[in-house]
């Protein structure tokens, strides 16, 4: 009992736990219990709770809500339920054949165990991996950084090799692989809250400190418009240990061509900013042109031209440039 008893003592108040039976019930439980959090796969949330970085008042389990795990395709496009696991997305024939960017991104999330547990909505809403933010107070040292309401970003003058090169008030990066892929395909997030439903383009979902969800809102689905048959999709992720690591940098590219000329392009970087970073200048450079190696190189340089690396992460610039170039040439 030692460990379990210790965990209980560490919690100032007793943790409430609800099994929601419907989206409406989940939302109303969130509204009625300030400080409550949704739990789905639990991969990120349970880890943060154990290290006492996050101490929710209650957990609202949505795994007990029927019908939230699905992958469907119709004339409008692809619809994925929030509780669909990363493994289900990576394995889906529909996703692999018609939305390869999403399947490619899903297949390089974490390792098999994480893909079996982690869900679509959890992947999109996971917390940053900044080691100052995640430092457990149990260790005796913690950092009251801007993301926690403090005044400093400890990464700026500290260990920042994995941090943003397109930073904001917080220099942590969005660790999601699915986010850049889904932004590149112009996905829309559906949410439900006490005031009803909302549709938010994923591109506008992220904020420098997190996302636009209210504490009593939840994701109820993702919709991806059907891509043109002339769209080529590519997801590339650079990480140190291929088995499990988060991206040092990643790129999701969706490029539509007609008669050899680019008519539409979406190039989105992951691991470099607090949210997915859309490289608009690179998109503009290739649109209306025939793709070539030298054009891809010009676009790659343009994609990173606005980067302002911190003291220890300038290496992310050439890595991201190389990824953009490869995504556009191979």
């Amino acid at each position: 009992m030692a460990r379990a008893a210790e965990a209980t003592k560490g919690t100032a108040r007793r943790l409430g736990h609800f099994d929601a039976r419907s989206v409406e019930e989940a939302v109303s439980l969130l509204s009625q219990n300030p400080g409550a959090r949704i739990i789905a796969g639990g991969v990120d949330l349970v880890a943060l709770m154990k290290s006492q970085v996050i101490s929710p008042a209650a957990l609202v389990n949505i795994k007990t809500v029927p019908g939230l795990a699905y992958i469907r395709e119709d004339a409008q496009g692809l619809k994925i339920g929030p509780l669909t696991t990363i493994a289900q997305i990576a394995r889906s024939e529909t996703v692999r054949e018609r939305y390869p960017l999403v399947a490619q991104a899903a297949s390089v999330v974490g390792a098999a165990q994480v893909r079996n547990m982690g869900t679509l909505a959890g992947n999109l809403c996971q917390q940053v991996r900044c080691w100052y933010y995640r430092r457990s107070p149990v260790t005796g040292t913690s950092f009251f950084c801007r993301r926690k309401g403090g005044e400093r970003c400890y990464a700026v003058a500290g260990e920042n090799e994995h941090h943003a090169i397109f930073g904001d008030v917080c220099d942590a990066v969005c660790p999601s692989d699915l986010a850049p892929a889904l932004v590149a395909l112009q996905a829309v997030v559906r949410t439900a809250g006490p005031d009803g439903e909302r549709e938010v383009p994923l591109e506008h979902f992220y904020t420098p400190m997190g996302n636009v969800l209210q504490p009593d809102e939840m994701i109820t689905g993702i919709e991806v418009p059907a891509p043109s048959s002339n769209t080529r999709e590519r997801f590339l992720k650079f990480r140190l240990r291929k088995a499990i690591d988060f991206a040092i940098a990643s790129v999701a590219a969706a490029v539509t061509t007609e008669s050899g000329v680019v008519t539409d392009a979406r190039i989105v970087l992951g691991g470099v900013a607090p949210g997915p970073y859309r490289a608009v200048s690179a998109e503009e450079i290739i649109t209306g042109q025939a793709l070539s190696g030298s054009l891809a190189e010009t676009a790659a340089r343009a994609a990173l031209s606005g980067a302002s690396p911190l003291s220890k992460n300038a290496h992310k610039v050439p890595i991201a440039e190389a990824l953009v170039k490869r995504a556009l040439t191979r």
Partner: protein
Amino acid sequence: MIDGAIPVTLRVNGDDYQLEVEPQWTLADTLRERLGLTGTKMMCEQGECGACTVLINGLPVLSCLTLAIECQGMDIMTIEGVADPQTGELHPIQQAFVERSGMQCGVCTPAMVLTAKALLDENDSPTEGDIRQALAGNICRCGNYKRIVECVQVSAEMMRGGKAHA
């Protein structure tokens, strides 16, 4: 509203256990501290090492990031349930690990065996690449990967009926 210790029924290795858990207790803690099933190991407790892997409904998951209270109605398999429950005869994967020194310190081994079992249950003829990919989330600090992969290859052969022993 559920608050404090609550009664749950957990199905582990085919047996139903009735016990009370606090909502924040992880499955790993509960298996080890409440059910005495200490074959499930805990190392990083942050989802990076894979040592706490158990099978839930046949899929490898991290028991140290799974809440026990949310496992009701699921089929949980730990390393204690891998050998034949009647005869105690080792599973071919376990047998291969014993005969071919698949373990050194042994801390990653229960999770390696379970993760390999999930792979072989789905694919009886995996390539070396399939095996490495499937075991990518299981870290062996002794660095015994080469032999671990061999053990899985050999046990796959045994399970296909090629050989009785590794």
